[in-house]
């Protein structure tokens, strides 16, 4: 039974801590002259991205290459991966070619679970619809840990379109598992229909939450939300929920500003605020490769090559 990473919940507190502990070593590897180790030599990592994302795909690819694994990329639109071939056929064909890990991203929630039920290799969820993005949550936890030492008792505000955000869902799970206090800040139309059972508090007043936040995590606002009658305009969103220059002054001195990227400067974050020292967004990206190396190493680092 090969291990997969489909949800942050798969790891539990111990699992998250283990990923972060090993990530330290991979940060060191990435800073070397030759940022490569042979740990996954002979293993094959295939990324199957049905939803475009150059950044995440590159991050996974870099991580796999730095572990000396062989990498293959399938991006929908090219080759036979399109509407014609069924998801199951595609995945089983890839598996037949010999793959140790399948990194899957899809616009529909649950696809990694479906894939995992059809293949015997490891499956890594690189983002499924609105549902989860576990490696993002892991690198976010790691970034906070490196900056602040521990998440225990830390007050984290997640701001923005929570309803449609897989990053938010994974982060709520990860942050609360590590002992942080999570507050969601969003207009009512951008919160999920029900927060019952979520380990969070909710607020629609960002000015009230900001001065008490150790970490401000901004979510990306997609322009389509305006056309779906969820918001009257982007301007109104920024006025109520954007990290403007005025709001940046309300932040605690050592507060961290985070964003999963890519940032909509001028919408959820003012251009000048994005480049303040409190913004650790570039660190998130750098840590992303190390954390994904840790995940790949933990999942594949011992089983014989396919």
């Amino acid at each position, binding site marked *: 039974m090969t291990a997969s990473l489909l949800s942050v919940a798969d790891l539990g507190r111990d699992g998250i801590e283990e990923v972060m502990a090993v990530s330290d070593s991979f940060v060191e590897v990435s800073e070397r002259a030759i940022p490569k180790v042979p740990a996954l030599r002979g293993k094959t990592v295939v990324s199957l991205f049905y939803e475009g994302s150059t950044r995440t795909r590159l991050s996974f690819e870099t991580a796999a290459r730095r572990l000396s694994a062989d990498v293959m990329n399938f991006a929908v639109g090219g080759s036979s991966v399109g509407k014609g071939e069924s998801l199951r056929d595609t995945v089983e064909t890839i598996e037949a070619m010999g793959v140790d890990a399948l990194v899957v991203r899809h616009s529909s929630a649950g*696809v990694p679970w479906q894939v995992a039920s059809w293949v015997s290799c490891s499956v890594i969820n690189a983002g499924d619809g609105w549902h989860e993005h576990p490696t993002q949550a892991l690198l976010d936890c790691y970034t906070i840990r490196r900056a602040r030492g521990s998440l225990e008792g830390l007050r984290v505000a997640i701001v923005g379109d929570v309803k449609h955000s897989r990053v938010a869902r994974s982060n709520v799970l990860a942050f609360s598992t590590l002992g942080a206090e999570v507050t969601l800040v969003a207009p009512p139309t951008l919160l999920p*229909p*029900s927060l019952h059972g979520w380990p969070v508090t909710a607020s629609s007043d960002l000015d009230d939450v900001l001065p008490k936040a150790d970490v401000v995590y901004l979510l990306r606002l997609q322009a389509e939300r305006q056309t779906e009658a969820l918001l009257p305009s982007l301007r109104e969103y920024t006025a109520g929920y954007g990290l403007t220059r005025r709001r940046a002054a309300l932040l605690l001195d050592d507060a961290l500003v985070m964003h999963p990227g890519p940032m909509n400067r001028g919408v959820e974050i003012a251009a000048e605020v994005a480049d303040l020292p409190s913004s650790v967004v570039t660190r998130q990206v750098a840590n992303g490769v190390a954390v994904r190396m840790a995940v790949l190493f933990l999942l594949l680092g011992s089983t014989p090559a396919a």
Partner: protein
Amino acid sequence: MVDATGERRADVLVRDGQVAAVAAGIEPAAGATVLDAGGCVVAPGLVDIHTHLRQPGREEAETVETGSRAAALGGYTAVVAMPNTEPAVDSAGVVREVLELGERALCEVRVAGAITKGRRGEELAPLAEMAGLGVRLFTDDGRGVQDARLMRRALEYASALGVTLAQHCEDEQLAAGGHMHEGEWSSRLGIPGVPSEAEELMVMRDIALARRTAHLGARVHFQHLSTAGSVALVRAAKADGVPVTAEATPHHLSLTDEAVASYDPVFKVNPPLRPPADVEAVRAGLADGAIDAVATDHAPHAQEDKERPFDSAPPGMLGLETALAVVLTAVGLPVGRALALMSWQPARIARLDQGHGGPIAEGRPANLCVIDPAAVWVVEPDRLASRSRNTPYAGRKLTGRVRHTLLRGEPVVVDGEAQR
């Protein structure tokens, strides 16, 4: 033996397609086929007023023949096939085609006609022409009629034909983009949700329209009700004397939206599976008569289609072969009550009660089923007679199984095996 008149112990003699005698201790004549019904319940055949046979157009999922075989194995002697075929059943020609296919079927196949042309919800279909061929139930099922004015006209026009308009209640504006019930589970799973109001608003609207056209003789039947609100609305309407009827599916009586957590599109259905409170309310509706019938909404889909991502997989579940067992096991209804909901009451709604669901008595057509209420079996998708495999009960152990089914006196199912 259980029928609408009550329960008794007896043997049944069938000759020339009719019930010839009902009495204790009938001696079989030489050469007669004897079907053992020891420990079983002999009942009128079940009637499903909501089945998708997929033919014409989607034969890879099901045909009239394979669907009727599944029906017979489930104890059904009559089904009403829904019109969302390709082409839709919106004219005499397509009605005739399906009826002809049904002539050799293992159960009686009736057809529901579309209310609007192509089920597009824009213009009335030729209801009278289809009624002339015996169509008694009309629905755009798959969709609800969105335009209130059009629905009113349809009710007025149909009232002169002695037919019933059945509604798939779904307000498409409210439901837009949803793939499961909107609530705690959809929030957790990150799947766009359909609020209960999408169903309830149309139930409310059609009750009002039915009230208005009642004096003309129009009749409205609500298909697959799934929410507490819907059940309450229908209960109140009936109490007020509005001539409406309602059905519920076995899956809305036994499964909740939590099942979707597996992300298996087998659990994707329209209307969606609901939370426990709604399931309880639908069961209560069965118990107090707010809901008149259990109908399967048997919706076969080819395996590839149900292996698509949840968002893009088509909604629908199989139902014909498991309906009775689910109603007896998961809902726990006594056999007599189950039969009322699955045989004579739906027969009356679909105006099939001349031939089906009626009391087992001399001179009546021999459309019967023999049920073993204690038989325990496990649902194996690969062993179902349906061409498709999308049952949400795969691997479940159920109690209650049909042993024999007789269609117009012909034993089409004997000892759980289809005879042709």
